[in-house]
């Protein structure tokens, strides 16, 4: 397996999570009171893996028979995944208690899904991508329906599974076509053969199907239909994970598999496809979000429109675009987790307090939560000096450099529309009086998670260059 010990150290971020899964499983099997321990244990696992990745950015290598890359921007992805998952774990502690919906597999599945994401981000082979994708997706399907006492959760899980399996089919089909024309599943070999393959219709169809499959995972139009239903039905914490780390993982898979093609400009053939779904996602998400009355559905449509902005970075197909996407994913993960976190804190038992109207007058009742939620809304809307602004800024700049100015202009227009529904929430919280006084359970761990997200959102907004220059130097 390993040629030397250094290679083992390089894969430690994955190994830590894998060992964590094994230990968690054993503990869960023999203990009835594992809930508290497992939550903190998985946080520890995630943080250990994440910070180890962050401190070993220089350990670039390709290990395990050319299957897995380590170090560099891959580790930045690892950090985004694990930190997001750790924040979700913090949020889950009190959330699960509130619903009385703790099942032993919850934290274990959280860890397996993150392992799947890491395999995708580090993959050097189409098989590895597929393996990671399935590990992540299957964990997600179960997580969506984890609260099996509720019918909505089961419905959400089933819909996610059916449509997800359907989409995965296209990814496999795409991989088959690529293998058929390139006679290899290794990125390195495909890359070297690219110049002769770029004129091959079957190969291009394979790439397109591959992208379509992932368009489903990143929730791009017209493969987005599952998103609102699944986000609404799944536990809010889990929905937060889907929309952040899950989306980031799908983007990482696209980036690592097509990296050379994107940065060499050879992807120009695919650009029209990306441009079209990007514009449709942005506008569809922003416009339909306006009509929503449920906050989780609103965030689901917001997630669709953010997928659109991110695809602009792919369409730009230059290294600025890729760096912009990674920055955007980090920014988006933290601000969206913050928003979902507050939703999960305010949510009452039996899925109450999820209507936008329950947020009326929150500014006077819960000044801290309202202030933080406003911060996340401003950031999601792309208002400086928060992280969301610089995410959009870098991606639009990349589009302009790639002579896709029209795409950047449409992106700005869509942002303007999206301001309406983000700020409507702020208006509801501060400019309306509440009709009924809803009870909100205190959650210190949840509050901590939201605080961490808020600090990251502000930090990335005040000193965005520190992360961006890191990404660029490790691209």
């Amino acid at each position: 397996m390993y040629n030397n010990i250094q290679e083992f150290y390089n894969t430690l971020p994955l190994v830590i999570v894998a060992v964590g899964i094994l230990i968690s499983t054993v503990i869960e099997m023999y203990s009835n009171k594992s809930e508290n321990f497992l939550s903190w244990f998985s946080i520890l696992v995630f943080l250990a893996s994440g910070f180890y990745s962050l401190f070993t950015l220089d350990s670039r290598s390709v290990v395990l028979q050319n299957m897995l890359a380590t170090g560099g921007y891959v580790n930045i992805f690892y950090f985004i995944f694990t930190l997001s998952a750790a924040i979700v774990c913090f949020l889950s502690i009190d959330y699960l208690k509130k619903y009385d919906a703790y099942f032993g597999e919850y934290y274990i599945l959280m860890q397996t899904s993150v392992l799947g994401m890491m395999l995708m981000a580090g993959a050097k082979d189409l098989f590895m991508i597929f393996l990671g994708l399935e590990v992540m997706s299957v964990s997600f399907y179960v997580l969506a329906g984890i609260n099996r006492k509720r019918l909505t959760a089961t419905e959400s899980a089933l819909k996610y599974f059916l449509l997800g399996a359907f989409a995965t089919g296209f990814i496999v089909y795409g991989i088959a076509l690529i293998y058929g024309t390139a006679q290899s599943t290794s990125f390195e070999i495909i890359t070297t053969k690219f110049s002769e393959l770029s004129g091959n219709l079957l190969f291009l169809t394979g790439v397109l199907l591959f992208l379509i499959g992932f368009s489903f995972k990143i929730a791009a139009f017209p493969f987005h239909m599952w998103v609102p239903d699944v986000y609404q039905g799944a536990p809010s914490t889990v929905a937060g994970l889907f929309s952040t780390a899950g989306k980031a993982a799908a983007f990482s898979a696209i980036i690592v598999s097509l990296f050379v093609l994107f940065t060499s400009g050879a992807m120009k053939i695919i650009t029209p496809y990306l441009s079209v779904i990007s514009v449709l996602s942005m506008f569809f998400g922003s416009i339909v979000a306006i009509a929503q009355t449920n906050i989780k559905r609103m965030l689901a449509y917001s997630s669709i429109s953010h997928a659109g902005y991110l695809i602009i970075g792919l369409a730009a197909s230059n290294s600025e675009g890729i760096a912009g996407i990674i920055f955007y994913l980090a920014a988006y993960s933290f601000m969206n987790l913050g928003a979902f976190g507050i939703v999960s804190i305010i949510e009452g038992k039996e899925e109450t307090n999820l209507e936008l109207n329950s947020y009326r007058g929150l500014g006077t009742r819960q000044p801290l939560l309202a202030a933080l939620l406003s911060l996340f809304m401003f950031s999601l809307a792309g208002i400086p000096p928060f992280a969301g602004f610089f995410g959009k800024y870098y991606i639009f700049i990349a589009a302009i450099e790639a002579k896709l100015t029209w795409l950047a202009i449409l992106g700005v227009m869509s942002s303007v529309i999206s301001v309406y529904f983000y700020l409507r929430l702020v208006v509801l919280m501060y400019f309306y009086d509440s009709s009924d006084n809803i009870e909100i359970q205190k959650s210190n761990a949840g509050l901590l998670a939201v605080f961490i997200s808020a600090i990251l959102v502000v930090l990335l907004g005040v000193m965005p260059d520190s992360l961006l220059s890191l990404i660029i130097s490790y691209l």
Partner: protein
Amino acid sequence: MRELIYLTVLLPLAGFLINGIFGSRIKNEKVIGTIGSGVIGISFLIALGAFFETLALPVEQRQLIVTLFTWLDVGGLNVSFAYQVDQLSLVMALIVTGVGFVIHVYSIGYMHGDKGFWRFFAYLNLFIFAMMNLILADNFVLLFLGWEGVGLCSYLLIGFWYDRKFEKSTTSDAAKKAFIVNRIGDFGFLLGMFLIFLTFGSLNFNEVFSKANTFSVSASIYGFITLFLFIGATGKSAQIPLYVWLPDAMAGPTPVSALIHAATMVTAGVYMVARCSVLFASAPQIMTVVAIIGLMTAFFAATIGIVQNDIKKVLAYSTISQLGYMFLAMGVGAFSAGIFHVMTHAFFKALLFLGAGSVIHAMHEEQDIQRYGGLKKYMPQTAITFLIAALAISGIPPLSGFFSKDEILWYSFSNGSFILWLVGVITALMTAFYMFRLYFLTFEGKERFGHDKHPHESPKVMTIPLIILAVLSVIGGFVGIPEVFSGEHGNQFHNWLAPIFKDADRKLMHFGLHSHFEEILLMVISVIGASASILLARYIYLKKPEIASRTASRFKGVYNLLWNKYFIDEIYDAVIVSPTVMISKNVLWKIADNRIIDGTVNGVAKLIEILSATIRKVQTGVAQLYALVMVLGIAAALLWIILSF
């Protein structure tokens, strides 16, 4: 210590955060005051350490840039949070933190018992944070951030007592006036920044200034850049035509007037011009404009100051007048003399304001000097320190004001012309006159206040800052003793700043063709004149008070003109404010905004809402339909790739 200079910025920020967030819960004034003053005190010590460290270094190593982090680096624009430690920024940092610390301490006594005590200290700390960004910035963007920040704090502090009346309106109106007038200047400053970026492709001081030395840029570009920058300076530093906000800014608490509207913020414009001396030196015609505007401001403000009766108003016009001197210095290329005056003025004008605050405090918010008199008996320390400050500003040797003012007057003669000098000296005589009018009416003569007032000396926490500033006002000038007296060592202050201005000096090429005899002669004339003015003020206001009222009624026209400040506020109101409000209300609001813009926006919003509600119906919840939509999407994509191949 030089590497730690960023702490002088971050400590006030920390103070602001602590007092701003927890202040309302701490409640204990001593704790809040100690935190608020403490952070500034430590900042001052750090700045002092950095100063001595720099002093020990050879001249060519004295500049240091401390980068905290890169803020933006895209599309050729590189902006960092980087602080520049050099001779000029150190002088300013010492003034701001030093005088700032003293005023913070004074405020503990002055603001005692105010319900917004914590808010006051939070704002003051925020102000110092912004001001330190302004003077330590190594690029225009960070400078502008500080520039706007101090404007915001000025707004917050002028309107600090938002529930109080001020003249005919409220303190909020005064705050708004300051903010809006400043915005006009800021707009000019922004244009200047844009033009600098277009011309030099950078906003970093070192890059811009070194390129200004080597690039061949047409004189008219320099003219526009410096004109725009100077418009920014006229707003912040209260020069003609944008000085109107400063007298109204006196609505704020007196320590604020001392700190922001006398010693530090209003000198930001002077600092900025000095910092950009290379650019200004490349545009001689704008230098002339700067000198003339400065001199006119100095002269007109002094004439208004003679007749005002509100103790803070007199000081406000005096500040405008003294700022005019500083710009006169900038305009004639005497950059270091201008900065020297910034420093001495910070000492004695802060002292005057704090002394005035002490009097106002003792007289229960009474500000009319006609209702003071004979206060020396009750508050000796305030009276003596006030007298020292008045002597200093009048230019009586060997107090600090003498050295800095006479240096400016000398350069306006040697680099400029006899007319500049003459008007400058006349202004100086008026200054001595109105300052001693103020002193005699307040502290000497008959008591003119009612029996309900019981004036008393202020507590130690207020008088000790007065004494410290009085000492500085006396000895502060010794660092800049002119060459005539100090001989071969030359002017120490001038030598210290010389490396900053060497490029500008080279461009201006002023030759010192004048003799020392001329310099001493002019000095003697101005000192004799100032002394005569003081004696005149003593004669009129102490011995023969009826002369004042007789003169006022004899020259009723002139008196009214001055009393009403040349009707400038009324003219601005009639020519600019009222028409703007009219047009805004009737055309922009009722037609453009309500009909055109709102109509369009509401129309589009309505359309999008309808669209949104329609599309929403597709989301039925039926999984088969979702799969169908996906299939349609895939089919379309495949069709496209096959057809386009």
